[in-house]
C-alpha cells in the first residue's frame, strides 16, 4: 500500500497543534471522541509554545531579573555589572522552558490517545482532508476543527529581503544582540520584545504609527509603562511611519518619517498578526472566510459547514492563546452533543512588560466611546504597603462599574504582577459580581491584590 492511499477514519480531525487545537483534542478524548491532530511541525504547542507566549515570557523574565538587580542598589544590594551569555540563555529557553512544556504536552497526548500527524492539512471536501508532507495520508472525519492560528503580519512595501528584518518569531530566537534595534509597532509584541532586547543590551528605537503606545488601552494604565520604556529605550517616535528600508552592507538603512535616515543592525516588524486561513483547501468546503481572512464561526464555534468547526486566532480577534483554549474545550463539548457555548464575557489581555499591564471586560476608553455611563474607581499603588516593600509604587488598579447596579463591568491594572492580578478582575466580571462583593471579600494583607478591594470600597463610600 502506498502511504498516500492510506485513509484514516476518525471522529475528529484537528488541523493545527496550538493551544486551541490541543485543548480541543484533549477534551474530545475525555468525551470519548477519537481525535487526531494534524500539525505542520508534528508537535503540540503551536506558536504559543514555540514562537510566542512562552519563549517571550522566558526572555522577559530575564529582563525583569536584570531590572530588579539594577534597582536593588537602591536598598544596598549590588551584584556589579551583569554579564549575559546568550548561548546559555538560548539553551535554557529551548530546553528547560519550551522543551519541558513540549514533552509535557506530548505526554498528555499519548496518555489520552491523541495522535499527532506531521504535515500540512488540505481539505478535500466537507468530510475529508489530505495530509501533505511528512506523513502523507487521507483522513475521513465526522468533524474537523480548524485551529491553524495566525502568523506575524508584514508591512506592505517594506518587505526588505534581509534576514536582519525580523518578525516576532525570529526575534525570539535571539540569534544575536544587535547594537541598534528598530522596533516597528508600539503594541504588546513590540513593547515586550523591545524590552527584552533593551535588557540584553541593545539600543532600541521604537516607531509607532498612532499617538500612543498600546493603542486602545486606557491611557492611565499605559502611562507607568510608557515612563519606564522612555528610560529603557533610546527613542520612541509616536505618530510616525517608516517610509523606506533597505539593506546597506551589514546594516539596514531606515527612513523614518520626518527624520534623517538611520542605520540599524536589526529591525523588528511587530505590526500585529493575521489569521492563517489560506492554503487549507477551504474552498472545497462550505466554510465561510471573511474579508480579513478570518474563518466565520458562531458562539458554538461552528463554521457555515456543518461538519467543520474553528477555534482560536484563525477566527479573528482577540488573538490570544487563552481564548483559543477555552474555545477548544467548548467545541469538543459541542461536538459531543453538550449544551456548551463560547459565551465568555471577558478575555483578559496582558502585556508582560515591566511593569505589566492587564485589563479585561469593558475599558474606560470603550465606555466613553460608546457613550455608556460608568463609574470608575482607581487606586494608586503609592499607598499600598506591599508596593512600598517591593519598591514599586508606580502601579494602578481600576474598576469600571455599572452606576445603577454596582456590577463590575471591567477591570484594569498596571504594575508588577498585573498579569496575575487581573485574574480577580476577570472572575468578578465573568461572574457578574458587584463592587460590594469585591469590597466585602477579605484580601490578604499586605498584598497588591488588596487594591481591588480598596478600589471597590471607594465606590461604596456614602452608600
Amino acid at each position: 500500500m502506498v502511504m498516500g492511499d492510506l485513509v484514516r477514519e476518525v471522529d475528529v480531525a484537528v488541523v493545527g497543534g496550538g493551544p486551541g487545537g490541543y485543548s480541543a483534542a484533549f477534551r474530545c478524548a475525555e468525551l470519548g471522541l477519537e481525535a487526531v491532530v494534524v500539525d505542520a511541525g508534528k508537535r503540540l504547542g503551536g506558536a504559543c509554545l514555540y514562537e510566542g507566549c512562552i519563549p517571550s515570557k522566558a526572555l522577559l523574565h530575564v529582563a525583569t531579573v536584570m531590572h530588579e538587580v539594577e534597582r536593588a542598589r537602591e536598598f544596598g544590594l549590588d551584584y556589579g555589572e551583569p554579564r549575559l551569555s546568550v548561548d546559555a540563555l538560548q539553551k535554557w529557553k529551548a530546553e528547560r522552558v519550551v522543551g519541558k512544556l513540549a514533552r509535557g504536552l506530548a505526554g498528555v497526548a499519548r496518555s489520552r490517545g491523541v495522535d499527532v500527524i506531521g504535515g500540512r492539512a488540505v481539505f478535500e471536501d466537507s468530510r475529508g482532508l489530505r495530509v501533505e508532507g511528512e506523513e502523507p495520508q487521507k483522513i475521513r472525519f465526522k468533524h474537523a476543527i480548524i485551529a491553524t492560528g495566525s502568523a506575524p503580519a508584514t508591512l506592505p512595501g517594506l518587505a526588505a529581503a534581509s534576514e536582519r528584518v525580523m518578525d516576532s518569531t525570529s526575534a525570539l530566537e535571539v540569534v544575536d544582540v544587535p547594537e541598534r534595534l528598530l522596533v516597528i509597532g508600539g503594541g504588546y509584541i513590540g513593547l515586550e520584545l523591545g524590552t527584552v532586547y533593551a535588557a540584553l543590551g541593545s539600543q532600541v528605537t521604537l516607531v509607532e504609527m498612532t499617538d500612543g503606545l498600546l493603542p486602545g488601552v486606557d491611557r492611565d494604565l499605559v502611562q507607568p509603562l510608557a515612563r519606564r520604556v522612555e528610560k529603557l529605550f533610546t527613542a520612541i517616535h509616536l505618530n510616525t511611519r517608516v517610509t523606506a528600508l533597505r539593506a546597506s552592507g551589514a546594516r539596514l538603512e531606515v527612513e523614518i518619517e520626518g527624520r534623517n535616515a538611520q542605520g540599524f543592525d536589526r529591525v523588528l516588524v511587530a505590526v500585529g498578526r493575521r489569521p492563517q486561513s489560506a492554503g487549507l483547501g477551504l474552498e472545497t468546503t462550505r466554510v465561510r472566510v471573511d474579508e480579513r481572512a478570518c474563518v466565520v464561526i458562531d458562539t458554538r464555534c461552528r463554521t457555515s459547514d456543518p461538519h467543520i468547526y474553528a477555534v482560536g486566532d484563525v477566527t479573528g480577534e482577540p488573538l490570544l492563546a487563552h481564548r483559543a483554549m477555552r474555545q477548544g474545550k467548548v467545541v469538543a463539548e459541542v461536538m459531543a452533543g453538550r449544551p456548551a457555548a463560547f459565551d465568555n464575557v471577558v478575555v483578559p489581555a496582558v502585556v508582560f512588560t515591566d511593569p505589566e499591564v492587564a485589563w479585561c471586560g469593558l475599558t474606560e476608553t470603550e465606555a466613553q466611546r460608546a457613550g455608556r455611563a460608568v463609574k470608575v474607581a482607581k487606586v494608586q499603588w503609592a499607598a499600598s504597603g506591599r508596593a512600598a516593600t517591593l519598591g514599586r509604587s508606580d502601579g494602578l488598579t481600576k474598576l469600571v462599574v455599572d452606576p445603577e447596579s454596582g456590577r463590575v463591568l471591567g477591570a484594569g491594572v498596571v504594575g508588577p504582577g498585573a498579569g496575575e492580578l487581573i485574574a480577580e478582575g476577570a472572575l468578578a466580571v465573568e461572574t457578574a459580581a458587584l463592587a460590594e462583593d469585591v469590597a466585602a471579600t477579605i484580601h490578604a494583607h499586605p498584598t497588591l491584590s488588596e487594591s481591588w478591594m480598596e478600589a471597590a470600597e471607594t465606590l461604596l463610600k456614602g452608600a
Partner: protein
Amino acid sequence: MSRAFVLPDLGEGLTEAEIVSVLVHEGDVIREDAPLLEVETDKAQVEIPSPMSGRVEKIHVQPGQTVKVGAVLISFADSTDGGAVRAAPAPPAAAPPATEARPARARDGGPVPATPATRRLARELGVDLGGVRGTAPGGRVTDEDVRAAAGSTRGVTAPAARAPAPPVETRPLAPVGVEPPPLPRFEQWGPVERAPLSHLRRTIAERMALSASVIPHVTHFDRADITELDAIIRRTLDAARGRGVTLTLTSFLLKAAALALKAHPQFNASLDPAAGEMILKRYCHLGIAVATDRGLIVPVIRDVDRKPLLELARELGALAQRVREGKASLDDLRGGTFTITNIGALGGTGAIPIINYPEVAILGVARGREEAVVRDGQIVARLMLPLTLTFDHRIADGADGARFAADIVRLLEHPDHLLLEL
C-alpha cells in the same frame, strides 16, 4: 388608591395559614402595629400586626379560611394621617410585580449578568437568558431564576400540539419531587447518540413521573370468567356489524366499569391534598388507553353510564381511529375520571399500569385465555380474563379496591346483570 396587606412570609417554610379571627372591621381607622388578625399555622397561632396606619377599606378573608402567603387579607384606604406616620415598609404586592419585570439583558445589549454555571444551566434548560429577570443583587440571574423561567414557559406551551417540535435546544423535562443525581458520562464506555423526545413522549414522561412520584399506588389482582360474555359477543357480532358497529370486549368493560364506579364513587374522584378534600365527580367520563405509533394516548368517552352499549361501541371505534390518525381534538383527550387500559391484543398475563393523574384509579386488562378451572368439582375450560385494579391508596384501602374489582368481575361474569343496564 388603596393599599393591599398580604399574608406575610411566616418563615420556617410555612406557606399558608388558617384565619382564626379578624380583629378589625371595615371602616376602622387603625394605627401601625395594631393587631389585625389572628392566624393559625401548623406551628402556632399568631397575631398579625398592621404594617401601616389607615382606614380598613375591605376585609378579604373570614375566620376558618386557609390562605396562602401573598394572598390579600385586607385593603387599606390611603392613610388619613399618612403624613405624620413614617411610611411603613411597602407591603409585598399580592401579585408578582409583572410590570416591574425588566429584562436581565443590560441596557446596552451587553452580556446578561449571570455566572458561567448559570449560563450553562440556561442552555441546558433552553431558557433565553435575555428574557429572564434577575433577582439577585444588581439584577444578577440566579439558577433559581433560570429554573423558574424554564417552568413558566413549559406552562404556557399548548398541550397535545400535533406538529412535531422543530429540533431546538435541549429542554429538560419538568422536574418532579426529588432531583435525580446527574447522569454519568456514558461516552466513557462507548459512543452514544442523543435523540430529542417528541412532544407526546415528553408529555407522557412528565405525566407518568408525576403520577408515580405523587400517588402511592396499590394494585389489586383479580380474574373474570368471561366465557358467557364472549359467547354473547360472538353471537351478536354479526347483528351489530349490520348496524355498522364492531362489538368488542372493551365496550363491555366500559359499561361494567361505569356501573361499578356508581357503587364506588371514591374511584371516580380526584384528591385535593391542598384542601384536604376528595373531589367526587358526578359524571362518568372514561379514558381508554390507545397505543399509537407515536406513543400512548388516552381518549375519553363521555357519560359512559348514560349511553347504550351500541353507541359506546360506535363511539369507541370512531375515537380510536381519530386518535390513531392524529386527528383527536383536545376535547377528545381531557376530562376523564377513570381509565381502562386493555393490553390484551398484545398478550401478557397482567400488567400494573400507572394511574392517569389526577385520576385515582386505572383498570388494567390482559389477554383472556382458556384455562382449566374447577367448577362444581369438575375441571372445565373457561375463558379467563386477568384484571388489575391500581388505585391511589390515599383515597381508598385494599378492601375498597377488592370490593370495587369484585363488582367489575361480577358484572363481566354475569352478563345478564349487565344486560339490565345496557
